[in-house]
């Protein structure tokens, strides 16, 4: 056994020590691209556009402007793609630009407790890093903060060893945007996921109805127009909620405070008033007048436990969250999917583990939605569409758990048929199942809200469907009474060997309408109008078909021809409970229409169908 002598081992520890060094976060992510959604060239495009668009939308929101975002993707080499995202946001002051794009983990939203799209301060600089690794090209950023300022153009890379920006070039230039930012990134990729990309843009447009997106994809151009002219209120950060913090965070707050305990609680946390603060102190066995900095670790633990035991109202949400709103969801959906029915719900805001959240949902039915197969599911978190891992998402789980059959939809796991379901979860801290942010985790509080929203919408959909069914039912009844009962009568009369029973009294009794029946037998067309409606004014019967009805008895009051189709019009008044009839030679078919009487007082039955 070759053991090293003691002195050599000692040297070794020193040797090892010399090799120890700090690793830059950029180096770390260079080796771990998958953590940032750059694990495949295909996915890189969507990730980059998503990050840039998220930043643009967030910036516009903060600056209270209506977003006007231009996106371009152009192939520049066999496997190189140039991506440009340009917005009309507030712009970035020149001295910040290098840090925003050339340093990982740099941002303004990381520590704020409010709903934002981007948060980590990694996204866009990760794209810069990916570009420099695969194409070697720097990222070009143009930004302008206002009419009085010049635009600045940067060529930026990241110094990987130190995670510091490397500005290759900076110049002041003229730019036609008065304010805004344009970023141009070029890297190795493929357009295999073009369909997914277009879906992403479409869905983004649905939940950002105040934004306009113009897209150039190689030679194609699309516009997703805005449907709302209102800027959305920018969420404002709030204090942490006492139910939503961990010991580590508390310790940091304590260390940074020179307040008395009771003031620390009231001022440092959401929804904690004097009374609540006192209750927390009492439970923790601490005096409210203690300086917080003096608290021992054990006292801090006791305080934390007390803070989480005392009941505190949910955090304020109107401030820090920005739901889309029922009206705008409807408008957004209507723009991209033309449907017969659409309804949306914004649930009251709620809270899980101290994090405020709000659930919004919408259901659409019919129209251009595909009649067969599973419902279309649109999932969103903080106004960002979730494009992957539908099966692993709590939203999908909730949709599956709702009993859609009780709302007259068919269901096999997911509901089936021409249905679209949208769910949006907005929170200061959306709980994802994994770093790739593709699926929302199963949090009972959130699931409950989703299910309630869906059930509420389901009931509304059911009302719509049964109203629709009822009008179908009325037609169905008319068909039974006017078409089938006479046949029963014929057959039964034959069986019992008695004269044919006249069934028109049944029609009258049941229908209380003006009934127009058209039938064709042996080359004769018969139109019969039976008036059970009580109305006795003048009406017109329009009969449009290929027959010219030249031998009609009575003659038509008016005949016109167009493309081989003859419109025959008869005008008449029909006394109550009596019948008017016309007969002519022909093949039948076509359309019959009765005018001059209320819709709900008439019924047309084509006996040939």
């Amino acid at each position, binding site marked *: 056994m070759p053991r090293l002598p003691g002195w050599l081992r000692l040297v070794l520890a020193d040797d090892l020590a010399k090799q120890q060094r700090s690793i830059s976060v950029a180096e770390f992510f260079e080796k771990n691209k998958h953590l940032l959604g750059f694990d495949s060239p295909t996915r890189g495009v969507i990730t980059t556009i998503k990050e840039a668009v998220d930043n643009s939308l967030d910036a516009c929101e903060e600056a209270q402007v209506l977003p006007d975002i231009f996106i371009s993707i152009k192939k520049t080499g066999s496997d190189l793609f140039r991506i440009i995202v340009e917005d009309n946001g507030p712009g970035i002051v020149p001295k910040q630009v290098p840090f925003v794009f050339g340093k990982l983990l740099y941002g303004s939203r990381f520590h704020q407790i409010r709903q934002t799209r981007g948060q980590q301060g990694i996204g866009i600089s990760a794209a810069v890093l990916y570009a420099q690794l695969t194409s070697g090209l720097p990222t070009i950023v143009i930004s302008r903060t206002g009419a009085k300022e010049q635009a600045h153009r940067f060529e930026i890379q990241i110094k990987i060893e130190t995670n510091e920006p490397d500005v290759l070039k900076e110049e002041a230039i003229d730019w036609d945007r008065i304010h805004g930012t344009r970023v141009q990134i070029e890297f190795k990729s493929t357009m295999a996921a073009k369909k997914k990309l277009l879906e992403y843009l479409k869905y983004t447009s649905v939940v950002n109805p105040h934004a306009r997106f113009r897209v150039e994809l190689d030679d194609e151009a699309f516009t997703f127009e805005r449907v709302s002219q209102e800027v959305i209120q920018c969420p404002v950060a709030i204090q942490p909620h006492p139910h939503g913090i961990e010991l580590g965070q508390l310790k940091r707050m304590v260390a940074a405070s020179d307040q008395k305990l009771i003031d620390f609680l009231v001022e440092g946390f959401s929804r904690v008033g004097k009374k609540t603060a006192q209750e927390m102190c009492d439970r923790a066995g601490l005096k409210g007048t203690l300086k917080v900095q003096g608290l021992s670790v054990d006292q801090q633990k006791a305080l934390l436990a007390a803070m989480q035991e005392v009941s505190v109202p949910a955090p304020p949400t109107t401030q820090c969250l920005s739901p889309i709103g029922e009206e705008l969801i409807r408008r957004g959906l209507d723009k991209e999917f033309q449907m017969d029915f659409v309804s949306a719900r914004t649930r009251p805001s709620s809270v899980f583990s101290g994090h405020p959240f709000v659930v919004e949902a919408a259901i659409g039915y019919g129209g251009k939605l595909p009649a067969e197969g599973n419902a279309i599911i649109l999932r969103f978190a903080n106004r960002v569409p979730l494009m992957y891992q539908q099966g692993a998402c709590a939203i999908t789980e909730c949709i599956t758990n709702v009993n859609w059959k009780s709302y007259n939809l068919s269901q096999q796991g997911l509901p089936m048929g021409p249905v679209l379901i949208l769910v949006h979860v907005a929170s200061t801290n959306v709980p994802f199942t994994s770093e790739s942010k593709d699926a929302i985790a199963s949090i009972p509080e959130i699931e409950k809200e989703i299910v309630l929203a869906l059930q509420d919408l389901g009931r509304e959909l059911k009302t719509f469907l049964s109203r629709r069914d009822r009008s179908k*039912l009325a037609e*169905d*009844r008319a*068909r*039974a*009474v006017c078409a*089938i*009962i006479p*046949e*029963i*009568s014929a*057959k*039964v*009369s*034959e*069986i*019992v060997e*008695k004269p044919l*029973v006249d*069934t028109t*009294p*049944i029609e009258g*009794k*049941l229908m209380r309408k003006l009934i127009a029946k058209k039938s064709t037998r042996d080359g004769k067309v018969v139109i019969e109008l039976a008036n059970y409606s009580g109305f006795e004014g003048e009406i017109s019967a329009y009969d449009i078909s290929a027959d010219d009805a030249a031998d009609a008895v009575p003659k038509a009051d008016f005949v016109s021809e167009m493309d081989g189709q003859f419109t025959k019009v008869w005008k008449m008044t029909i006394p109550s409970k009596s019948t008017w009839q016309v007969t002519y030679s022909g093949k039948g078919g076509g359309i019959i229409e009765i005018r001059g009487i209320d819709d709900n007082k008439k019924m047309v039955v084509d006996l040939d169908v």
Partner: protein
Amino acid sequence: MSREELEKKAITSLLSIASAWYDQMKAGEIPSISLPSRTKYNIEYDDASEVWKYGDKESLRNAASAKSATHLLKMAYVIGFIKQQLRENRSSTLREMYYISEGWKRAKFAAQDESNYLIEDLEILSDVPREGFHLHPEENGASIYGPMRIREETRRGMKTIHCQDDVGQAGYTIPNSVENIEFVDHDAKFVIAIETGGMYDRLIENGFDEEHNAILVHLKGQPARSTRRMLNRMSMTWDLPILVFTDGDPWSYRIYGSVAYGAIKSAHMSELLATPKAQFLGLRPSDIRDYNLPSDKLTDKDVEALRSELTDPRFATDYWKKEINLQLEMNLKSEQQAFAARGLDFVTKTYLPARLAEMGILKR
């Protein structure tokens, strides 16, 4: 009821349905009809007749929607068809009627099921079995071998047949319509209805019918309607004990159940099709134990079926509870031919005499 009476009743009932509709329509009303609700929640045990029948729950069908109007229209066409068929003394199968409906336009059947269901409705409404409508099933009845004589009205005239002397080795085959049979005379002490052909042949080969004056009926698995009607008539007409001899598994107990108690599907015909006096001969779970018969393990499906029988009111007797629980405990089932392991004569020389004596059919 004789065949003529049955046909008369059929035509009268069916015409009365049509007449009722005629009158309704004449009075300006939508034609309608009431039917007992045909679910298992509307099945009741009738103490008088000892069979399971439909209860009081009724549902009204009127012609106020296209769907039910069409149903009434189809019923009218079927009534017309049956009327004509009876008048011409023709008959047909349900399948043929289904195809004939091709010419009925709006009254055409969409599927065979629909015509079957409609015929059941008419059976219920008229209290006449479908044979009375001259609608016969496709499936043949089973075979009979034993000392009995019947007279059958066939298309080729009246035939008198003795079920031992006038038939081949395979026995007399029960026709589709048992109503055409007249029971002449017999020299039997009891009837054994046997599940498998192998056992039926064994009893014939061993001369069991002659030795014990037994009538042997081959059920051919789950017995056909005409077989059940035949057993019912043998029991009613001649008051012969009917003994059911099957394999020793839950599916065979169901065969016994359908002979003795009838099926939900045909509860309206129970008085005609069920034979409440039928007794279960074997093969009992205790026989598996007592005769140490070759056996198989119960499958999951077997166990499930046994458990479901334990909660079936028709099997709610001490006898069945004891036997079924024993079987679940042993976890075994046997076929009736398993007796062959004890020799080809064992079943006729040993098992059946002992069992029949135990049941009081044979004297010890």
